[in-house]
Structures are given as structure tokens and as C-alpha cells.
């Protein structure tokens, strides 16, 4: 007896997710990670001329900055080609000819990218933590050797200074925020790609969105607080503030590296904001994709 067709199936979404992930890994995107590793190790060697505080500061800034760039790029480039590629390969027709709802297809595709982003960020984080941990331990050993005859208290102060400049648990919160930012960019790219005619168009639009997103907070505050500007300018600012995401809210990494403790409430609010944006842009993408003629 045939099993009844279900309106929503995690199994079907899982199959599309796995397939998307396999396709994306075949696109050699993982070579980016190799370049990242080389840059990281290269910069680490170069920084041997600095003091340990300078070295750790630059290592953390460069590594987390590189993670942010690569994850954002990966999110935009990998998502931009999902639908156009499936249309070109005619895979989309094969899938949608089966009893697979369009939102399941889109969700499967998006989850594939999100999984790829999670794996990439996990690998980059592991590499970054390994380099930082190794350098920190090497500096700790060197300090202990150099201060072997110093009083215990001075040695402890020196070791605490090295530990304070080195690996810190807050960095993981920074990495999580980088991932959330990449997720929202992927969802927004998916939305743009549902009505874009080429993936070049999607990528170009997303580059502009990226820059505008970082200025959205300024536009929003100007719109809400400045009453003296003309109504045209206010309407323009309102559209920017309402449609675009506030990407500046996700730049917690600079402060984390500077040693500022991020309150849990702020991290939670930022995470919720990231999830909200991702869900909304995915819903908008699904809505447009339902009306798309294939």
C-alpha cells in the first residue's frame, strides 16, 4: 500500500539539503578555506616581530575579519547561483515535477547553504583557535622560562597578562554572530535570486545591499530623529530603514577582540534579530518563488 503524500516532509527537505551541500562542495568553494589557512599561518609568522599583545590582537582581528569576509562572500556567491544553476541544468523541473512543494525546495536549498556556511565557519574557527592556542602556549612557556628566577607573584601577573591577551571564550560568541550575519545574507540573496534574471545581477545587488546594510542604522536614526529634512528624503530613508537589514548590529567582533565583555542579553537580542531577518527574507523568497514561471 502506498504511503500517503504529506504536505510537509523533513525527509524531502533533508534530501534537497544534502544534494545542495554535495553540489556546493564540488564547486571547489573549500579551496577558499585553504587560502584562509595560508593567510592565517603566513600572517602569524610575519607577526613574530611584534610583542605578544600586538601579535594576538592582530591575529584575532585578521582571523575574525577574514572569517566575516569569507562567510559573507560564500553566503552571497553560493546562494546567488542556486536557482539559476538548477534552471540551467533543468534539475528544478525534475524536482518540482514530483510532489515537492516549492517552499520545501527553497528551504532545502537554503539549508544546504547554511550547512556549508556552518562547516566552513567551524573549520575556520578550529584553525584560528589552534593557531592562537599554539602561540599562546608558546608565549606562556617562554615567559615562564624567562621569569624562572622571579617571585611567584610577578610570574603570575605576567602569565595572567598573556592569558588575557590570548584566547577568550567571548570569541565564540563573535563567531556565532558572524554565522548569523552570513545566514541572513544567504536568505536575502535567495530572495533577490527569486526575481533576478542572472546570478551576476543578484551578486551585484547583494554587494550594494551589504554596504547599505552597514549604513542602515544611520539612515534609520536620521529618519526617526531628524524632522527638518524634506519629505522625499524622509521617505527614501524610511524605505532604506525598513527594507534593509541593520548589518552594523552584527559587528560585535571588533569589541570582543578589544576585550569588551558582551552582555548575554545583547548577544541574545542580536541572535533573535538575525533569526528574524533570516525567516522574513526566506518567507519573501518563498512568496515570490511560488509565482515564478519556470
Amino acid at each position: 500500500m502506498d504511503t500517503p503524500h504529506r504536505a510537509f516532509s523533513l525527509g524531502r527537505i533533508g534530501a534537497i539539503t544534502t544534494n545542495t551541500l554535495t553540489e556546493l562542495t564540488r564547486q571547489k568553494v573549500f579551496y577558499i578555506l585553504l587560502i584562509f589557512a595560508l593567510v592565517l599561518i603566513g600572517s602569524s609568522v610575519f607577526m613574530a616581530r611584534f610583542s605578544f599583545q600586538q601579535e594576538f590582537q592582530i591575529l584575532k582581528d585578521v582571523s575574525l575579519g577574514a572569517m566575516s569576509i569569507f562567510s559573507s562572500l560564500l553566503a552571497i556567491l553560493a546562494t546567488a547561483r542556486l536557482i539559476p544553476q538548477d534552471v540551467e541544468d533543468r534539475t528544478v523541473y525534475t524536482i518540482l515535477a514530483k510532489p515537492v512543494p516549492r517552499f520545501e525546495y527553497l528551504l532545502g536549498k537554503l539549508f544546504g547553504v547554511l550547512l556549508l556556511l556552518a562547516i566552513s565557519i567551524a573549520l575556520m574557527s578550529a584553525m584560528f583557535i589552534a593557531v592562537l592556542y599554539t602561540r599562546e602556549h608558546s608565549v606562556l612557556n617562554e615567559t615562564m622560562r624567562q621569569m624562572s628566577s622571579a617571585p611567584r607573584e610577578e610570574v603570575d601577573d605576567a602569565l595572567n597578562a598573556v592569558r588575557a591577551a590570548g584566547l577568550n571564550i567571548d570569541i565564540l560568541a563573535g563567531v556565532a554572530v558572524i554565522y548569523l550575519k552570513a545566514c541572513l545574507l544567504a536568505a536575502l540573496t535567495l530572495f533577490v535570486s527569486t526575481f533576478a534574471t542572472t546570478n551576476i545581477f543578484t551578486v551585484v545587488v547583494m554587494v550594494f545591499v551589504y554596504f547599505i546594510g552597514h549604513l542602515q542604522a544611520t539612515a534609520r536614526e536620521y529618519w526617526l530623529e531628524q524632522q527638518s529634512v524634506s519629505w522625499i528624503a524622509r521617505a527614501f530613508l524610511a524605505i532604506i530603514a525598513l527594507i534593509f537589514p541593520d548589518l552594523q548590529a552584527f559587528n560585535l567582533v571588533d569589541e570582543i577582540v578589544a576585550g569588551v565583555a558582551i552582555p548575554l542579553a545583547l548577544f541574545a537580542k542580536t541572535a533573535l534579530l538575525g533569526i528574524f531577518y533570516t525567516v522574513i527574507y526566506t518567507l519573501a523568497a518563498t512568496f515570490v518563488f511560488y509565482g515564478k514561471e519556470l
Partner: protein
Amino acid sequence: MSRVLFAFAMLLVFGVMKLPAERAVSLQHRQLHFEDVELNLDLREKMGQLGFIAALSGFRAMVADFLFIEAHVAWEQTEWGRVLFLFRQVTTLQPHVPLFWDMAAWHMAWNASAAAMNDTSQPRLALRVKAQREYFALGKDFLERGIKNNPDKPQLYEALARLYRDKFDDHTRASESYAKAAALRGAPSYDKRFSAYELSYCEGREREAYERLRALYDEGKKERLPTLIKRLKLLEDKLNVPLDQRIPDELR
């Protein structure tokens, strides 16, 4: 097409819903002074279009590091004007990194000032001294602004104390700065001791210095370091402390 327009209308509606959350996050950023960075036209002129765009796009820390490395190169080439110029940009971009303020002050007050004093192209001593003092003042300015941006970081108070002690010969202010550092969370244990040492050099405050040093001495063996004992003995002599109240002579 109508679906796309409808989707955008939907985003506008959701945009109204997200506004309070966005403003709450932004407000918290402001409360934590995350948005103290002044990315203005003046900075854009200094760092160029590309650097400015990068700084606006969430790569502020990386741009600051790049400029910091440039400043390091400028220091190696003893281009002091450029070192100052670059450190001003670095500290504008990353005002919450005490290391950058500390390094900027150190380059100005120690390195550039020494170079100015040994400048063979300037035969007049008075002008060399003037240039040296200007660099001391620049170092002090970096540290004071750094403290304003990072009032909870002991590292900058310590650097200011060293500057007062070594460059301005102002032991009172050095002692105050060490005391401020010692009062902060995460301060090294020596800050309290150093504050008392500096006070022991201040004319007219010997009694206060003696009491603080004696209190540290009474804390136990870990505080009984050679400098502390030496300063304590000097003050005992200076203040004519009764013999039975003095620290044992074998430590003299």
C-alpha cells in the same frame, strides 16, 4: 512582477515590526560605547576612499591593524610625523583597544622625543628641548584620551603613571595614576606597591607614604621586596620613627 512588489510591501510591514528590536540593539551598543567611533569626513580624507569604505563595511578592526603595521614600519624608518598621523587614525578606528593608545603614547613620549633630542640637524638645544616636550605632551594626550575611552583598563593608567614618573618627574601624579590602576579589576598586584613607592618621593607626603608602605609590609612576605624595604627604611629615618616601631634591621 506584482508578486515582487507585494513581497517588498510585505518587507515594509515587517520592517515596521523589526524597528523596535533594531533600535533596542543599537541603544545597547551606544550604552556600551560601541558607537563612539567617529567615521567622519576628516577621517575619510586621512585614510583614503577605500580604507574608509572598508571601515564602514564592518572591517574597521582590520583597517586599524593594517594602519598599525604601517605605523610600525614608519617607526622603523623613524618617520615620526607619519607615526603620529597613522596612530591618530588607528586610535580613531579602534578606540576600545588600550594597546593602540599605549603604543601611540610610547612612540611619542619615548621614541620620538628621544629622536628629537638627538636631532643633529637642529643645532639649538632650546628648540630640541621644545620638540622633546611637545612629544611628551602628545604621549600624554594619547593616554588621557585612551583612558577616557577605556576608563576600566588598568594598563593605560599604568602607562600614564610611567610617563609622569619618567618624563615629567611628577611623582604625585604618577602615584595617583598607579593608585587608580590598582583600584580597577584585573590590575596587577604591583600597582598598589608602585603607587606607594612614587608617593615616597613626594615632598611633604612622607607620612602618608610611610603608612602605605608599612601597611604593605605588614601584609606579609610577598610584599617585602628590596625596593619596598629600602624606601621604608629611608622614610623611617626621615620621619624619625621610634626604633621599636621600625622594621627589623637585618632587612636593611
